[in-house]
């Protein structure tokens, strides 16, 4: 069992501004650095647009300063061995040999080459989202949106930290890694599956709970499963986007 209650994460103003400039509506979800550079180039000659960027920098910097005081990055995780996969159900057993069955539906196919899976739940705590909600309710949607983006970026960085743990273990064993799977985000594994996944981890240790709608509280928390195995070819954690039914429309696609 792995429990970390203070993950050191650094986030810069520039990273937030880049994320704000990456408009998935415009790009169909694909990262569009060309568009960003193009926009920045245009901005130089456009006083009014430059004014927007200058204004954004100040607000983003202020929001980031306030956010840093209320980020509580925590993680709980555990390795499970994969016993078998049958009828889209994956049978796991942990260190105490207690078995767990997850119905991953279509996404069970991503575990066919696996030997072991890393279950994890991580969070940035609830203080930032309280700030976000407060800003939203007073009608400051810009500030609320920036807090939202900051929270998501912190969460993404913890995700990278999780990926690195998995990739290192796979590397040490001479194995490869599977894709990042999260209930409600991958085809076939419904959000309700989060209840069972979380039941396998002491999420209360990181002050996370799951509500009656299968939503993790604090909201900026995530549960996931990443498998490793001798038959996987990739060395880095991947995504399942290319197999998703919403791949053409999705605004979050990697």
């Amino acid at each position: 069992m792995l429990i970390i209650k203070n993950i050191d994460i650094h986030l810069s103003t520039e990273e937030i501004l880049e994320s704000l400039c990456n408009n998935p509506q415009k790009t169909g979800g694909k990262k569009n650095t060309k568009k960003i550079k193009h926009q920045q180039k245009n901005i130089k000659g456009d006083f009014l647009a430059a004014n927007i960027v200058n204004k954004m920098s100040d607000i983003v910097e202020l929001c980031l300063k306030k956010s840093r005081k209320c980020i509580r990055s925590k993680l709980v995780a555990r390795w499970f061995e994969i016993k078998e996969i049958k009828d889209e159900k994956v049978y796991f057993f942990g260190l105490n040999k207690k078995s767990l069955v997850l119905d991953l539906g279509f996404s069970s196919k991503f575990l066919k080459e696996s030997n072991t899976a890393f279950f994890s739940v991580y969070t940035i705590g609830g203080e930032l989202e309280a700030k976000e909600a407060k800003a939203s309710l007073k009608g400051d949607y810009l500030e609320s949106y920036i807090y939202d983006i900051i929270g998501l970026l912190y969460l993404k960085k913890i995700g990278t930290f999780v990926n690195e743990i998995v990739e290192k273990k796979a590397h040490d064993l001479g194995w490869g890694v599977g894709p990042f799977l999260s209930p409600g985000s991958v085809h076939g594994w419904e959000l309700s599956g989060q209840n069972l996944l979380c039941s396998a981890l002491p999420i209360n240790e990181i002050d996370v709970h799951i509500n009656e709608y299968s939503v993790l509280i604090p909201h900026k928390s995530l549960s996931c499963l990443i498998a490793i195995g001798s038959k996987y070819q990739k060395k880095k954690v991947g995504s399942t986007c290319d197999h998703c039914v919403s791949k053409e429309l999705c605004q979050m696609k990697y």
Partner: protein
Amino acid sequence: MKKLAEYIKYGKGVETANRVKQLINEGANPETLLNDAMIPVMDEVGALFQSGEFFMPEMLIAARAMQQGMDIIKPILVAKGIKPMGTVVIGTVEGDLHDLGKNLVIIALEGAGFKVVDLGVDVPAAKFINAIKDHNPLAVGLSALLSSTMLVMKDTVAKIQKAHAEKKVKIMIGGAPLNNEFAQEINADFFGVDPASAKDFVRSLL
């Protein structure tokens, strides 16, 4: 007025407020400023966002500038006894904490001159029912982003319709997992695929 519209479009809040003050001091009618400059430019901003020309922060900055202008105009309109075009009650259904989509709809509606009563997120059906009673809105907007809270939305719509059976308040819904079929299934009046369509629907109720 062209300058005022430009200030809003490019999110220059202080300049917007100053320009509004200046124009009013020069004898401009606040209603004219609202209807001929501020509302049309917010429509334009919405269209630019929709087409991908504007990024989300640009729209939010424009909305903030609009708000700063409205802070000057609103008290004058109230003093003159001029009421908003209509009221819309809006919120994210119980169990769901997502508010970005809802906020974009609020921006579109306020930018179009409507009063919006924002109930926030995780809103139980009873709170919608009471707000409808208190504010007599043209429409009520329900938002949900999770498949699990779509069921809550269905229940909320049924409870609102039961509680306000005589008034038959129009119910519009929005959120990533929703569609027209779901709106019909839960007996909602409208599914808004984006903030602009929600605004157009409310305008059609006038």
